[in-house]
C-alpha cells in the first residue's frame, strides 16, 4: 500500500467514524463527564487520534477502538479533575456548576423522562454497560473489549441493570 493510498484510507475511515459514531460517542462521553462541551472536546481528540492510526489495523474493530480511546480519555480527565479537586476545590465546584449535566439537560428538555432518571440511579458499572449497549449499540463482546470486563461479566451487569430499571419502572406504573 502506497503512502497515498493509506492517506486515502485514513480519510475514509475518519469520515466513516464521524458519520456513524459522532453522536453516540459524544453522548457516551457526556454521560461519563456530565458535560456536553467537554465531551465534544474528548470526541474531537478521539477522532484526531484515529487519524494517526494505521487504518488497516483498526478498520475491523473501529467501534471498539473509538469507544475505548474515548473512554480512557474521559477517565483520564476525571482522574485529573479529582487531583485538582483536592487542591482547588472551590474552583472545580464552580466549573461543575456551569457544566451541562446531560441527565439534567435531558431532564430539562423532558422532565418526565423517568427512564433517564432511573438510569442515573443505577450503580456506575451497570450504567456504563447499559449506555454502551443501548447508546453505543454494542455487542457484549465489544463492550468487554472496551471496558476490559469479561463477556459474562458484561452480561451479568446488563442483566442486573435492566432488572433494576424494570423494577423502578413497574413500581412507578403500579
Amino acid at each position, binding site marked *: 500500500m502506497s503512502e497515498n493510498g493509506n492517506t*486515502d484510507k*485514513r*480519510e*475514509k475511515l*475518519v*469520515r466513516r467514524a*464521524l*458519520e*456513524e459514531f*459522532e*453522536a453516540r460517542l*459524544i*453522548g457516551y462521553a*457526556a454521560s461519563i463527564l456530565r458535560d*456536553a462541551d467537554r*465531551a*465534544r*472536546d474528548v*470526541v*474531537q481528540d478521539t*477522532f*484526531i487520534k484515529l*487519524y*494517526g492510526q494505521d487504518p488497516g489495523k483498526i478498520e475491523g474493530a473501529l467501534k471498539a477502538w473509538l469507544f475505548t480511546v474515548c473512554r480512557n480519555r474521559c477517565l483520564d480527565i476525571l482522574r485529573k479533575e479529582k487531583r485538582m479537586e483536592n487542591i482547588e476545590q472551590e474552583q472545580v465546584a464552580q466549573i461543575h456548576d456551569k457544566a451541562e449535566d*446531560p441527565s439534567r*439537560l*435531558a431532564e430539562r*428538555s*423532558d*422532565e*418526565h*423522562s*423517568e*427512564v*433517564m432518571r432511573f*438510569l442515573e440511579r443505577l450503580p456506575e458499572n451497570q450504567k456504563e454497560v*447499559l*449506555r454502551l*449497549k*443501548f*447508546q453505543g449499540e454494542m*455487542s*457484549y463482546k465489544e463492550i468487554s473489549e472496551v471496558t476490559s470486563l469479561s463477556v459474562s461479566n458484561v*452480561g*451479568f451487569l*446488563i*442483566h*442486573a441493570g*435492566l*432488572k433494576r*430499571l*424494570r423494577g423502578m*419502572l*413497574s413500581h*412507578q*406504573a*403500579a
Partner: protein
Amino acid sequence: MTIKPDDQRLTAYALGELEPAESVQLEALLKENPSMAAEVAAIREAAALLEGELSATPALELSEEQRSRVIAGGDEPGQKIITPGPDAFSRTSRWLGITAAAACVMAVSAIGIKQFLLDEKQAVTESLAHDQFAADKTAENKAVKALPVTIDSRVVDLALNAVADESKLSLRKEMPEGLADALPEIAHSAPPGEKRAFQQQVAKSKPRPTVPAANAISAGIEKHAFDGIASSRGAAIGLPEGKFSQGEGQGRARQNAQQAKLKTATAVGHANRPLKENLGLEANGFGVDDVKEKKKFEQLKTRTAAGSERFGRLYDTPFFQAFERPLSTFAVDVDTASYANVRRYIGRHGQLPPTDAVRVEEMINYFDYAYPQPEDSRHPFSVNLEVAACPWEKGHRLVRVGLKAREMNPGKRPASNLIFLVDASGSMNSPLKLPLLKSSLAALTRNLTEDDRIGIVTYTGNAGVALDPVHGDLKEKIIDVIDGIGVGGGTNGAGGIRVAYDLAAKNYIKGGTNRVILATDGDFNVGITDNGELSKFVKDRSEKDGIFLTALGFGEGNINDERLEQIANKGNGEYYYIDCAKEGRRVLVDKLSSTLVNVAKDVKIQVDFNPAKVDSYRLIGYANRRMKAQDFRDDKKDAGEIGAGHTVTALYQIVPAGAAKEEGGVAAVKTESRYRKVADADARKAALVDSDELLTVALRYKAPDAGLEDEATEFAIGLRDSMKGWEDSSQDFRFAASVAGFGMQLRESEFRGMLDYDLLLELAGEGVGEDENGLRKEFIELVRKARKITK
C-alpha cells in the same frame, strides 16, 4: 437446560446475545413456559424503552470548527488540503459561479466514469484534485485500451478532457470538433434547474456508483455535451465490472440515453423489473448488480408491521393532466402521527416502516415552518405559495401551498373542557404505554388553569368515571387520579365513550374548547364495537354537541393506526402518535394551543391549474384526504381542522406545459377514448383563457363553532411561476421538499425520480436552517439511519 426467571441468559437471549445453540434450546424452553416468555418480552420492552430514550437525547454533534479540525487530521482548518467530504463538496460546488460549478460537475462526472470503469468501489469525490487527475490520464487511457471490449474512447476522452479543459491543457485537438467550444457554452447556458439535475446525477453516484447512476451520468454527458456536435457518433456507456458495449447507432443511442436519463433513478430499487426494460439499454453486464438490487428490493418488500399493528393501505396519487382535470381538491390535515411512527420504526427498531405507515403529509406537517401570521384579519390563516425547481425530477417544478393559522397568545387560550378517555385494558400494562400516557397527561394538566375543566373516564378494566370534571387548578388532585389509573383485566367497557361525550356535553364551555382526548394503544373496546357505528357516533357528537376528539396512540405491537386516524378525522379531531415522553410533551405541552384550540374547521383546498402552463400535476401525500372537486363547495362535507398556530403544508409536483412532450408525459393519466376525438393543439388552445398564472389556490373553511348548515368562507390566491431554481428557494421550501422526498423514498413511491438517501441528506442539509427545537437535525439523523439500514 434449566433456567430460573432471574437467569442472565434470559437477558442475553432477549438482546440477541446468546450463542445460537443455546438460543435454540432456550427458545424451546420458552414455548413451554409462558411466564418465562413474558419475562423475555418484558426485558425487550425495557431495552427498547431505554434505547429509545437514549437515542432521543438532544442531537449531539461536534462544532463546525471541531469537525473541520478532525477532517484535517488535527491540523488547523485550512492548512491541509484534503478531499472535502460529501457535504463540503455540495456546499462548495453548488454555490460557485456557473462556469466553475459546471466545470466541477463535469469533472465529477468524468471521475464518476473513470472510477466506475476502474474501481467501482472507490468513492467518486475522493479524487477531486484536478491536477492529480489530469496526470492520471495517460494511465487511464492505457487502462481503457487494455480492456477486452471496444469502446468509443472519445466518450471517455471527452469526460476526461472536460476536466482538463478547466486548466486549459492542450487537449483540445483530441476533442471532437466543436466540442471544446461547446463546453464552456454549456456551462454558461445551463439553466439552474438543469444544473441541479446534473449535480444530482453526480451526487447520486457519489457513494455507490451503481449501474443506473453511472448511466445517468453517461446520459447526462451524452445529452449535454453531444448536443452541439451534429456529426458525432452517439455512444452509450453503461456496464459494470469493466465491460463495455457500444451504442448500436446514433439515433438509438440518443434515444436510449434520453430514456435512461428519465428512468434510471426509478430503476434503483425496482430492480425486480428487468433493468433492460427500465433503462432502454442493451445490457449485458447487469447480472451482479441485478441480483444485489433484487435482494435488496425483496428485503424491502417484506417490511412488515410489527406484531399486530395495522396500517390502512395507501396509494400514491398519480399525475393528472391539467387540461383534462384542472382541479385538485383535498382536505387539510394537521396530524403528525405518521412521522412519530416512522421515527419509532427507524430510530428504535432499526428497520424501515411498512410503506403504508408512511403518510407523507403527516411527515411534512410534523415540522414547523416560518410562514408569516395572517395579515388579513378576515381570515384565520395566511396562505404562502412558493414554486421552484423540483429537486428529484429534472425540468419539473415543485409548488408549495403553506397555511399558517393565527397564533394564540398562551395567556389567552380559551377555557378548555377536556375529558380524558383512557384505555386501561391489560395490554396497556407496559412501560411504553401506561406510564408514558400518564406522564403525558400529567404534563398537559400542569399547564391548565382555573378556567379549564378536566374529567377522566377509563374504559375496559375498571371502567367508569375516574374523575368528575374539576377545575384545572386542582392539579394535584387531577394528577393523583391520573397516577391512580391501573389496568384491570376485564373488557366490559359499557358506555366508555358515551360517558365521556356526555360528560363533555354536560360541562360544555361556550366559546371554549370542548374535547374528548382518547388515549389508547389501539384497543377499541370503548363501548361501541362496530367500526362504522363508532365513526358515526363520533361524527354525530362533533356536529350536534360541538365536541371534538383528539386521539393519542401509544405503544407498540398493537397499534391500530388506521382506525385511530379514521376516528379522529370523523370526530373533527387530530391523531397523534406518542412514541416517547418527548413527543408527549411536544403535542400536549409545547403545542397545547394548536392541539386544543381550533381556529377553523372543515378547511378544504382546491388548486386550479392553468393548462397553458401546466401539463400535469401530482399532489404529494394527502392520499386519503383527496376530495371530489364538486365537494369543495358542498359545506356539509367534512374536512380538516386547523389549530392555533398550526402550519399545514402541501406540495405539488408539476410537469410544465411543453416539457412533457419531450419526456413522454411522465405518468399522467391518459384519458383518450376511442369514441372521442382527440383535441388538437389549436382546439386546446382555443379552450384556454389567456393567463400568466400557473395556478390558483382556493380555500374554503368554517369558523370552529359553525354548524353543519352554516355556509363556509372562501378566498383564492393566484400564483405565477417566477422560474426560480432550487438554489433560490427558501429554507422551509427545501426542508419540506426533503421531508416529502424521504416519505416518497420510504413508500418506494414510483414517483420518487432520482431520489436516494444521499440526495435527501443533501436537500435536508440545505433546508435545516436555524432549527430551534432540534427536530430538523433529528430528521437528518433519521435519514442517515434509514440509509444505513438500506445499505
